[in-house]
């Protein structure tokens, strides 16, 4: 354990947050550049993590581990370590944040009436500092292998998110009055907080329960994932069926709220609708992923039997989310809410893949987390640029945009195509893997999920048709095309999408071993093909 690389990766944005927040009010631009700088530094460190991670045969599961005693009395340790999935997620997080900062460059500037001199305008510094803070928390929760540690960051994340949602809205809601929007915003923020806090408390109970369970079976209670897994493997640890199921539920509910699974999803559309585009991306592409990631790592790893027991229900919920989210996306009048519901549908796919308990399903789910992150970022950010130009989130306020802003329309279309998982773009790979993985174990579920594909095509194309094509809506004649900054934000994302769609092998190489580990935790193996094909010539 030489240089604590993971800690450094997580600490950089945290430090950045402090530094950014400390910049005096007048020097807004400096704060922005500082934030960008720190986020880029994080990217570099994350890249280092990616390189240092050994994907070879027989490489141990958790790498770059760090372990210090923290609260000795309860066996809480500061334990970090990443498996393939963790590495991928950390990379995604670190990669997205600079784009978000770039996209939100002017979102937190004092708007017209509120002059920078007055104290009451929303300080830019705070905005960027909060974003960096969230990044730090998320990275830590991806890296934490001590359950209690994970829980802490899992919850602490909510605080900066709360302020980001409640404090910085795009002023383009359906309601015109400033107060109305403020009320909507705070409603959304409180809803977000309450939902996640409830989940968190349930999880806390489960965490404590877990500790007790370990404490009276092992020589001393522990929160360490690795220790518990080893004890399980050695047969020293076995929560009874009942206990295990309760604990599983405790964890699962929390994660199901975080990665909104029907019917615990209603906070997402509010939160995403009211917050600025970068924050919305932060919610759906980064923070929510912690939920699905945690399902994969903790729910399955710690409670295999219970997961097996719950699978039918979870899969049903996932299917409902897929169809339900897509249908509601069809019914939305508000661009960002539409994307939010689309995300709910996609999270349905992720959960489906995770609980299909096949290597394709779980590998696909992991890829899905990443691809969905990038795709949603692309789509949502472009939508954000559009909204910022027109000052409205209503789809009905747009039309024929491609005439005045072809590049914007084009990028929007590509983002949309990624969302409907067109082959050649990243999401297709993951979605198809999830489908195959599900199908190979639960045929019916796989087929039902396919309906999601068609619906996705519908809501994306209808959105595109209504906003971008047709005759130009009055008031849009002067709509400017993407600026250089905006293009610089979107273009790399699109390039990344294409790369992930054409050559995802590097990613799968990282992810596969981790998935194998998870599968072995739940003692599952892929179903065999019915009639193994005769070996084909290359």
């Amino acid at each position: 354990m030489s240089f604590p690389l993971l800690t450094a990766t997580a600490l950089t944005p945290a430090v950045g947050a402090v530094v950014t927040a400390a910049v005096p009010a007048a020097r807004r631009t400096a704060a922005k550049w500082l934030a960008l700088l720190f986020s880029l530094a994080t990217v570099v460190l994350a890249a280092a993590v990616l390189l240092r991670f050994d994907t070879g045969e027989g490489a141990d599961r958790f790498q770059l581990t760090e372990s210090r005693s923290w609260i000795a009395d309860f066996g809480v340790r500061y334990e970090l370590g990443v498996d393939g999935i963790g590495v991928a997620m950390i990379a995604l997080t670190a990669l997205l944040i600079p784009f978000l900062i770039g996209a939100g460059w002017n979102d937190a500037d004092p708007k017209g009436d509120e002059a920078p001199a007055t104290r009451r305008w929303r300080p830019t510094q705070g905005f960027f500092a909060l974003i960096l803070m969230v990044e730090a928390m998320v990275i830590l929760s991806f890296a934490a292998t001590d359950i209690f540690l994970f829980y802490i960051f899992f919850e602490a994340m909510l605080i900066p998110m709360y302020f980001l949602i409640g404090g910085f809205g795009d002023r383009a809601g359906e309601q015109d009055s400033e107060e109305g929007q403020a009320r909507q915003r705070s409603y959304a923020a409180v809803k977000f907080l309450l939902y996640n806090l409830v989940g968190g408390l349930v999880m806390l109970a489960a965490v404590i329960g877990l500790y007790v369970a370990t404490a009276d079976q092992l020589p001393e209670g522990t929160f360490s994932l690795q220790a518990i897994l080893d004890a399980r493997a050695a047969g020293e640890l076995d929560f009874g069926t009942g206990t295990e199921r309760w604990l599983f539920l405790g964890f699962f509910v929390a994660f199901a709220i975080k990665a909104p699974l029907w019917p615990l999803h209603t906070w997402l559309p509010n939160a995403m609708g009211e917050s600025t585009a970068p924050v919305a991306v932060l919610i759906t592409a980064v923070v929510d992923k912690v939920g699905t990631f945690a399902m994969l790592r903790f729910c399955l790893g710690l409670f295999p039997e219970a997961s097996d027991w719950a699978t039918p229900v979870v899969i049903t919920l996932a299917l409902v989310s897929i169809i339900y989210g897509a249908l509601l996306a069809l019914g939305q009048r508000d661009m960002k809410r539409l994307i939010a519901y689309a995300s709910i549908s996609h999270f349905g796919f992720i959960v489906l893949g995770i609980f299909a308990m096949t290597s394709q399903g779980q590998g696909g789910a992991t890829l899905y987390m990443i691809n969905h992150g990038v795709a949603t970022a692309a789509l949502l950010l472009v939508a954000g640029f559009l909204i910022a130009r027109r000052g409205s989130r209503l789809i009905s306020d747009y039309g024929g945009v491609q005439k005045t802003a072809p590049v914007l329309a084009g990028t929007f279309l590509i983002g949309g195509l990624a969302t409907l998982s067109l082959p050649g773009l990243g999401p297709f790979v993951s979605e198809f893997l999830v489908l195959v993985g599900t199908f190979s174990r639960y045929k019916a579920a796989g087929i039902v999920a396919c309906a999601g594909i068609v619906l996705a095509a519908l809501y994306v194309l209808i959105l595109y048709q209504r906003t971008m094509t047709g005759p130009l809506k009055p008031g849009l004649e002067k709509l400017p095309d993407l600026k250089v900054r905006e293009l610089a934000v979107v273009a790399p994302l699109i390039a990344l999408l294409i790369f992930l769609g054409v050559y995802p092998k590097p990613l799968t190489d990282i992810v596969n071993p981790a998935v194998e580990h998870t599968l072995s935790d739940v003692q599952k193996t892929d179903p065999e093909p019915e009639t193994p094909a005769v070996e084909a010539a290359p």
Partner: protein
Amino acid sequence: MIGLLVGAPLLGAAVLLVGGRFLERVGHWVATALAAVSLVLAATLFFDMLGREGEDRALHQHLFSWIPVADFQADVAFRLDQLSMTFVLLITSVGTLIHLYSIGYMEHDPRRRRFFAYLNLFLAAMLLLVLADNYLLLYVGWEGVGLASFLLIGFWQHKPSAATAAKKAFVVNRVGDVGLAIAVMLMFTTFGSFAFEPVLAGANETGEGTLTAIGLMLLLAACGKSAQVPLQSWLGDAMEGPTPVSALIHAATMVTAGVYLITRSGAIFNGAPDAQTVVIVVGAVTLLFGAIVGCAKDDIKKALAGSTMSQIGYMMLATGLGPVGYVFAIMHLVTHGFFKAGLFLGAGSVMHGMNDEVDMRRYGGLRKYMPITFVTFGLAYLAIIGFPYLSGYFSKDEIIYAGFSKGGAEGWILGGVMLLGAALTAYYMTRIMLLTFFGEKRWQPDAQGHEPHPHESPLSMTIPMMVLAVGSVGAGFFFDQGEAFVHWLEPVTGLGHGDSPVSHGTVALAATGVMLLGVAGAWWQYGRRPVEAVAPSGRWITRAARRDLLQDDFNHAVLVRPGNYLTRGLVYLDHKLVDGVVNGTAASFGGLSGRLRRVQNGFARTYAVSMFGGAAVLVAATLLMRAV
């Protein structure tokens, strides 16, 4: 080498899309050049292939491993055998010609660069589709062409009708794609792979049930892409796109992908007779459906679209017949590619000269004004109606013969249906011909009030038409020389010989007979007397046919409207029910606490009461403890 085949147009698309303004001037030439490059590559590969013998004609190229997850091994690998070779030649040649044609056709369009980018994109996707070595890669091409057609149909986005048509096409295709996706999954779960060789080899020792399931799913996909009933509704609207697009995508190449898919999966269908029956039925139904629609349309492109559907119906039916039909399906596909492309280009040329007027009742007597178009169009016309010794004659008659050779009652039925189809084909094609080029001129000033001045199109447009005309005249004859085409494809598709109750000659005779019948009927109705400029209301069958036999009304009533209600209802429920429950909980907690607050009224004696109550409870507790 094979990779380059796909790569060249892909590169073109990328360059043109990213390239930006300064490519405006040369963009179309770049695109055409790259299309030509792939054509040349294809030609060289073709001759190279001819150089080799029977078995080892098929080429494989493994580029890189695409999605490796456990047993799920998807590679980017190409397979170039006679079947794909045929398609590659068709696609690249027709594609290049149409690129050339578009240079003239899109001359005045400000977004020409993008148009060519899309065309290149389509070429790349289509080539990928036919060259793929496994079904997943094929799926990529499959949706790729869907995307290209979406972009090109909706190319004139400012027209809401175009945008809607594009969306419709993509969504309907998506339904078909789901079929293909499920088929791939089934293959994976059945054979543990979805590359052609293992799947097709494994098909022999797999249960018929599975094969039927896979077959039906593949058929669903084919229906989507090839506009077969019940997923046919998008093709008519697709004519909103620029005419070259209609010619390339919605006549010659993309819509035939379904036929390719089924032929490629022949082994599976051979093992699943039920699936084959369904294919036959679909083909037959579409054949008549398209023909009837084609008879009623006054929009020249829509009429041609109907004809396309019907012709593909022929091919489908042929593929449904199994090894007997595969070869001829492909053969008809190729010849159809030539003459239908020719027809569309002709139609485009006509519209070009008539200020984009599409209503045939406003044409008339154009043969004097645009002779070249007339001649080429005419040749293609003769080809499609199966005029003896033109290409249509050979391919179609073979299919009809194969139909008869199914044997028994089915054989007769199929044969009859196809003959009827042939008659209808002759009818509506003649109708188009008469309405467009014969009779006296019926055109009027358009909305802007300026009289159209019909004129022959520039060379860049007429040359492709001539080439295609030659193709549509000669292809069939050439293919039929010593059954060259049959021998060429046999190693891939296999060849079966049914015993037909009727001889080749009889079939040919019958076909020609009904053809003449159809022509006569059309002349009787449209040739003898002048045609009125506005369509008569006609009988119910005509009206229905004008509305595509109510397909859209059906979809709207059965799918769209209920869907709308469903979504609206769900939105309401989500707000009121799911969200309401949560908010309700919150509210109830608030009320409860408010009520509890009232107990704390601040009066010392109230608190004293609770104290004593507590004391009493404690005493009671102790006593109980003692008692127990």
